[in-house]
């Protein structure tokens, strides 16, 4: 990029305002959504827009990393957790104090105004150097970043591995339930199946009727009788078995016989 691109760049201005609009919209959506899932989707919107803004700020590598690490991995994890704890989770974990909400909003807006105007006035006269020179030193953005990571920021880089280990340990400790009974082998399982008095093979398929194609109707066996064994357990527990209309069964039998003879 050259200086002319930097100075009066209509394209960048447009990209900035569009992305700024969407990221602020997403951020507001994140905090006002009633359901956590909607918040997560708004959050993903913010992150994608920020990735575009990173690229627009001569940080292509960071933009990609943002997509890969944040949008790809972190938001996915958030969504996994939301699916697990229930999509419409709204659990109050912080004690409600009267007026806390209003106080929080006022405090946040106050801080925001202080930041925006403080930064605005402090930075009005600042000029932008641009990253062309810095990226040029090592002939490329990624090369320059690699240079810094592996020389100046060597210690933080190696120490982040401690963070990764902690994270994996934490995930295992809190979420993994190691089995304490050895897993049954195929042979043991099949022995157990035939040793008991249960039904060793497959249970009959659900009943098939032209009029009533449903799992809650007992199946019709080849000999013309019906069996309740085809009904799924949860339906039996709920008492959801539909009684067999024997007139229908006879009718079916009559039709079949009539066709044959």
């Amino acid at each position, binding site marked *: 990029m050259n200086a002319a691109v930097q100075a009066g760049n209509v394209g960048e201005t447009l990209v900035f305002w569009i992305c700024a609009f969407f990221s602020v919209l997403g951020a507001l959506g994140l905090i006002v959504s009633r359901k956590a899932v909607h918040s997560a989707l708004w959050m993903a919107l913010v992150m994608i827009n920020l990735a575009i803004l990173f690229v627009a*700020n001569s940080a292509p590598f960071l933009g990609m990393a943002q997509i890969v690490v944040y949008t790809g991995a972190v938001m996915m994890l958030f969504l996994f957790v939301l699916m697990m704890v229930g999509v419409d989770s709204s659990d109050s974990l912080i*004690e409600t104090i009267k007026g806390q909400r209003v106080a929080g909003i006022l405090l946040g807006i106050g801080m925001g105004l202080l930041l925006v105007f403080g930064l605005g006035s402090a930075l009005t006269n*600042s000029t932008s150097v641009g990253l062309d020179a810095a990226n040029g030193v090592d002939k490329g953005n990624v090369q320059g970043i690699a240079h810094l990571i592996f020389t100046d920021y060597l210690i933080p880089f190696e120490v982040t591995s401690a963070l990764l280990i902690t994270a994996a340990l934490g995930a295992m400790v809190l979420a993994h339930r190691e089995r304490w009974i050895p897993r049954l082998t195929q042979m043991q399982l099949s022995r157990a199946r035939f040793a008991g008095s249960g039904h060793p093979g497959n249970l009959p398929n659900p009943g098939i009727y032209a009029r009533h194609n449903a799992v809650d109707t007992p199946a019709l066996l080849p000999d013309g009788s019906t069996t309740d064994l085809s009904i799924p357990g949860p339906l039996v527990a709920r008492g959801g078995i539909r009684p067999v209309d024997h007139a229908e069964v006879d009718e079916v039998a009559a039709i079949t016989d009539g066709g044959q003879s």
Partner: protein
Amino acid sequence: MNPVNYVILSAVLFSIGAIGVLVRRNAIIVFMSVELMLNAANLAFVAFARINGILSGQVIAFFVMVVAAAEVVVGLAIIVQIFRTRRSVSIDEPNLLKH
């Protein structure tokens, strides 16, 4: 296009995130608001890297991403654990931590 605008945008996003933390009660939404604040800080780093013409701002933002991802793993593990416990246990200590 003045790059200072990016810094202002980051301040706005940071404040919205802070409001989310202060106002919302759902642990997951609070946590996402914190992530928003970290992202806002990253935007500030990237913008300042360009304003100052120093690449290390981008490297710092990169480290922040990595650290934040590790933090997310730990935080969500804690949240999952507490949700599982609450779902399955008849809460015998209903008046938990107060204030």
